[in-house]
């Protein structure tokens, strides 16, 4: 990308600077910058799913028949016991095997089954060939499931914090249970939920650093590749181990995203707090 600069500028900044600009904008580095898309996609999709699951699970836990409440409770509490890394690795593998199992029951003929004894999948035609888009989708779903449980916890607490008098008044006006839930309960809940939700969002963003564990060539993998010492001239610039500098850039990126998210949530909180009869607190 150095050739995009006009010649007089290239002469003006000198050879050294020009070299480094050229290096940090070569194909490899551009791919590194572009791979941020995976992180952002996973965070947004995962966040959306987490919010949906969280709202559903919290609503169920609040007011539904006992067996459903127990299920919702188990779902919400299981993340307190199992690391998110484990879910992250576990879920895509399980999902893939489930899909392949269903396919193999329908597609596999006895001949192909006999060919493949002892291995998975049972026959070759039932093999689901995965590539980056599928892995990214499954990673987003895993993130959504894990952080959905956290979100459900936050929203459940927020639902209970809405003054009960408001709900009683709505019922007295003749609103159906669903109308009370959607018009009054959930709308009033946001101001209590936002601090907790912002916490969960920050955890979610940091969890996107684990995408490389699912064979997605993301931000972190590229930093590893670029930073690793290169001892071979044909592979490009010969350089010693620069890894910690590249990782520092990653850390700076995440801190920047954290800072931006805090600003956005602050603005959201201010908006949601308009006209609400509560005292503005500093750190909830």
């Amino acid at each position, binding site marked *: 990308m150095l050739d995009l600069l006009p010649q007089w500028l290239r002469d003006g900044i000198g050879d050294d600077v020009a070299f480094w600009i050229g290096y940090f904008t070569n194909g490899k580095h551009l791919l590194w910058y572009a791979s941020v898309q995976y992180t952002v996609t996973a965070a947004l999709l995962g966040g959306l799913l987490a919010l949906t699951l969280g709202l559903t699970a919290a609503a169920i836990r609040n007011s539904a028949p*006992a067996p459903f*409440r*127990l299920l919702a*409770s188990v779902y919400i*509490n*299981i993340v*307190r*016991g*199992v*690391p*998110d*890394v*484990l879910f992250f*690795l*576990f879920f895509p*593998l*399980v999902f893939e*095997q489930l899909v392949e199992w269903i396919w193999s029951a329908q597609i596999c003929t006895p001949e192909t089954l006999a060919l493949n004894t002892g291995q*998975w999948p049972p026959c070759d035609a039932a093999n689901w060939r995965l590539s980056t888009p599928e892995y990214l989708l499954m990673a987003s779903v895993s993130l959504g499931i894990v952080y959905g449980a956290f979100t459900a916890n936050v929203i459940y607490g927020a639902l209970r914090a809405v003054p009960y008098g408001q709900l009683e008044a709505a019922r007295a006006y003749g609103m159906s249970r669903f109308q009370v839930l959607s018009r009054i309960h959930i709308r009033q809940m946001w101001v209590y939920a936002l601090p907790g939700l912002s916490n969960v969002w*920050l955890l979610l963003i*940091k*969890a*996107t*650093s*684990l995408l490389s*564990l699912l064979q997605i060539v993301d931000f*972190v993998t590229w930093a*590893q590749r670029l*930073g690793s010492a290169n001892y071979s001239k044909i592979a490009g610039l010969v350089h010693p*181990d620069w*890894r*910690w500098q590249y*990782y*520092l850039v*990653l*850390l700076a990126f*995440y*801190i920047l995203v*954290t*800072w931006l998210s805090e600003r956005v949530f602050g603005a959201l909180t201010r908006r949601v707090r308009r006209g609400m009869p509560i005292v503005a607190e500093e*750190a909830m």
Partner: protein
Amino acid sequence: MSVLEAIVHEIELLAMPALFNIYFAAAAIPIGFLFAIFLALGKASPNKLLSRLSRGYIYFFRGSPFFIQLFMFYALALSFNISVWKPLGIDWLVLHPLFLGPAILALNTTAYTAEIFYGALTTVPRGEVEGARAYGMSWGQRFRRIVWPHLIRIAWPAYTNEVVFLFHATALVYFTLPVIGDQKDLMNKAGELFERDYKVFLHYSVAALYFLCISLAVFFVFGLIYRRMMRHMPGAVPMRFNFQRMLR
């Protein structure tokens, strides 16, 4: 092998690796606890420089993923190998995962715990502290008799959560630091077993079971400690693991 036999065998195989995770957590927690107290006091200090530095440290470690912190500090320690650790003769210690893992964990948990302690610090009843000052107590006496008891009781539930999260974070250590010989932790061992026979449910479920049981144990023990700490307070919330409350 029947399913039950397979599960029991799996539990045996993963018992030793579980100890590595427990070791990482147990080594990092006391250090984190101690330094967090100083960091929280630093953040609340009227000294501008100290306060800014403390805030910066907390913001850095809470705002970035632990996974990448592990990578970065390992690479950083490595780059100082020839210039600093070797001349001092401690390179075998500094670069060993059993030292570096807990060290980076401690750096991380100090920040999170300090934030919890700082939040608790701001809710210590000001009247009590002023009364103590009026009585002529020194800073040390005030801290020991008034501030600290309040702080630890207010912070304990959130701190319990942090300890469990720390334990979960130990699963990431061997994804980033080199594995020396047979010193494998739960995730590493489960992954190795999985690569041999692709039985996702067996290996990863039993690993999850270990994490779940140890997390529950931590919640239980810390709950007992909380009840003991709060035994003289009116209307204290019992931190029992109450199934009925889960259904309500």
